[in-house]
């Protein structure tokens, strides 16, 4: 209870400017106390995550099958559209089903994580207004749902790869695995901001699914950006474009033409994460009043 790292006889002071541990670090301490809070809350993160996963897959007949059925269906639809010639494209070296499934898997990290995190404060409202606990655990544990989702989709990718008898070398896989991290960080950073925003105004929760759908179509997830096209030019400044496509390039080719752009996107993601996290950390007590 109380504050992170608080000893028995240490005094905790609540002022209009925030909570202070008597004798503790003041100026320098913010990032370190943010990290400490998260580290101390790791058990809570795990418990909440476990609860949510159990809750999600518990009372359905198909249970664990749902996260498999949905992407299979989505990919099937896009493959059909592709076969029908509505979605024409050049320069894909891999079967389209595999191409779209990997795109979907990487994209879903972003969309699943954002969907889960944006509502987490509102859902936990009754708890937040009555119990003092590190709310960062709510956000992080919700965002971890995207990891489960990604894991399931990865299994599908493995199955599809073996169907096509296409096995990328291990170092491709490792590289892609590392390159996929930034999109998770970005979603976490955005999640921090959005769940606060939803805490103040519920509009966010209604707008988000629409925005995510639009973004998924706009970002080259199911199709490669055609050089020179309008979409391509618009996507030059879209970090999601690189965060989804670079891991895919790594997986299938082991290299990418967008190193600089990817680096910038990573930097952007990390900055947004730090910004969102700090915002969240500072706004915690304010949000308990408004929720």
């Amino acid at each position, binding site marked *: *209870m*109380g*504050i992170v790292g*608080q000893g*028995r*006889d*240490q*005094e*905790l*002071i*609540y*002022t*209009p*400017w*925030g*909570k202070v541990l*008597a004798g503790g670090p003041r100026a320098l301490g913010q990032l370190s106390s943010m990290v400490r809070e998260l580290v101390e809350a790791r*058990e*809570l993160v*795990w*418990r*909440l995550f*476990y*609860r949510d996963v*159990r*809750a999600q897959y*518990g*009372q359905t007949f198909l249970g664990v099958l749902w996260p498999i059925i949905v992407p299979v269906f989505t990919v099937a639809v896009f493959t059909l559209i592709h076969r029908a010639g509505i979605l024409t494209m050049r320069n894909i070296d891999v079967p389209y089903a595999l191409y779209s499934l990997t795109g979907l898997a990487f994209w879903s990290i972003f969309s699943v994580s954002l969907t889960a995190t944006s509502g987490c404060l509102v859902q*936990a409202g*009754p*708890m*937040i*207004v*009555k*119990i*003092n*606990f590190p709310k960062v655990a709510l956000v992080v544990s919700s965002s971890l749902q995207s990891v489960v989702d990604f894991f399931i989709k990865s299994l599908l990718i493995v199955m599809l790869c073996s169907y096509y008898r296409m096995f990328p070398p291990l170092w491709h896989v490792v590289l892609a695995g590392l390159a996929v991290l930034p999109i998770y960080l970005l979603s976490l950073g955005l999640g921090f901001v959005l769940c*606060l925003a939803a805490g*103040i*105004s519920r509009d966010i929760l209604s707008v988000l699914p629409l925005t995510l759908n639009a973004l998924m179509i706009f970002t080259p997830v199911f199709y490669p950006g055609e050089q020179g096209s309008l979409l391509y030019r618009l996507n030059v400044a879209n970090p999601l474009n690189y965060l989804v496509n670079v891991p895919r390039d790594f997986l299938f080719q082991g290299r990418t033409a967008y190193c600089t752009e990817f680096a910038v996107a990573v930097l952007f993601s990390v900055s947004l994460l730090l910004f969102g996290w*700090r*915002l969240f950390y*500072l*706004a915690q*007590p*304010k*949000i*308990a*009043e*408004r929720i």
Partner: protein
Amino acid sequence: MATVLPCPTEDCREDIVSTPGPVVIVEGVYKKYCSSLRHGMVYGIIDIGKLVFGGKPVSASLRKQEFWALHQVSFRLDKGEALGIIGLNGAGKSTLLKLLNGIILPDRGEIRMKGRVGALIEVGAGFHPNLTGRENVYVNGAILGMSKRDIDCKLDDIVAFSGIGSFLDTPVKFYSSGMIVRLGFSVVAHLNCDILLVDEVLSVGDIQFRAKCYNKMRELMKKGVTCIIVSHNMYDIRKFCNVVLNLERGRVIGFGDRDEVVDAYLYRTNELGAIRHYSAPILIPHMRKAAPVVLEEISVLGSSGQRTKEFNPRDPLVVRLDFEVHEPRNYVLWLEVIGQDGGRVFTLNSPVGDHALYFPRGRHTIWATSVTPSLVPGLYGVNAYVWDKRVHMYVDYLDGPSIQVRRTESMDDRWGAIRVTSQWTSKPLAPAGHS
């Protein structure tokens, strides 16, 4: 091989000698709330913006649609003290508790808490219906800040305390609501803390479980845990607290000795008409319409025969009852004296059975004088009923005035509900070893 770590027992906690001085200091605390959702949204954005981008964090003055939920609240508590916070709904009790818990921050002033704070405010937080009782205990414990090891150690105690027994591995959705509350309470009750905040949760569960909760609270207090309790139940407050804080519309209007503050609060609420109608029975409407007797007025008289509201502890109670009889027959008149909580202290009745008084048609006045015993200081209400012998029913009921029995300097009539005279005798026992 993994080493088995010993459980952090309660005993080892007591070795730590804590520094003297107050453990809770609340100084000039103000908290404002917004009464409009829309304004609240805007202010929320502004406040968070100010927090993040610097600048004066919170404006100390009121903006449009805002009001002070707490206004200059200050008090101190020493280790081991038990504070009761009382006040009408909306007085700011829960807000104060949230501030003490650190859930929200004051807009002005400062709160200092020395030691770990536990909160018995929300039971069963984070419970999920699909998870078993055991799983939920771990989730709930984690939310309350307990480590897995901590819960492992206490699981047996928690389960025993809750009385859930063999249902521990059943999903919580198959529990009765009482079982969920009991399990939730048990987890909270096993928190390790130095300062315990309690918000009206003692009213959960059945009588048996409530007794357990009371004992648990006592146990914690004996260990020197400082308690802060919010309750509307003055018995609980008197039972557990040594100091009481009375809030009214966000301001402290009383702080100090338990009995003084509680009495002042009760007199005040009585002025606001809170105790009246507390025990009024429900009379069947059609019976009332055709009431054969109508009670008109109850007057409480002092020794001089004048109406009065204040008595000394030993004064006899004289009650005058005015009523009108429409159907002449035998009736029994009842007077009940109710205490501050609405419970009956005693009743007086006119003769019953074959001796029931016969009343002819018309208006009547009747006097009842209580001879003994007498009331202890406090606030009482006097109500009247009429029992119709023929239909075997109460046919009318009337709320009477409230009266106050004055507090006296002597200690002998302070507690209980009634005062009885008693005789005491003593005899020296034979010294040990002799028969």
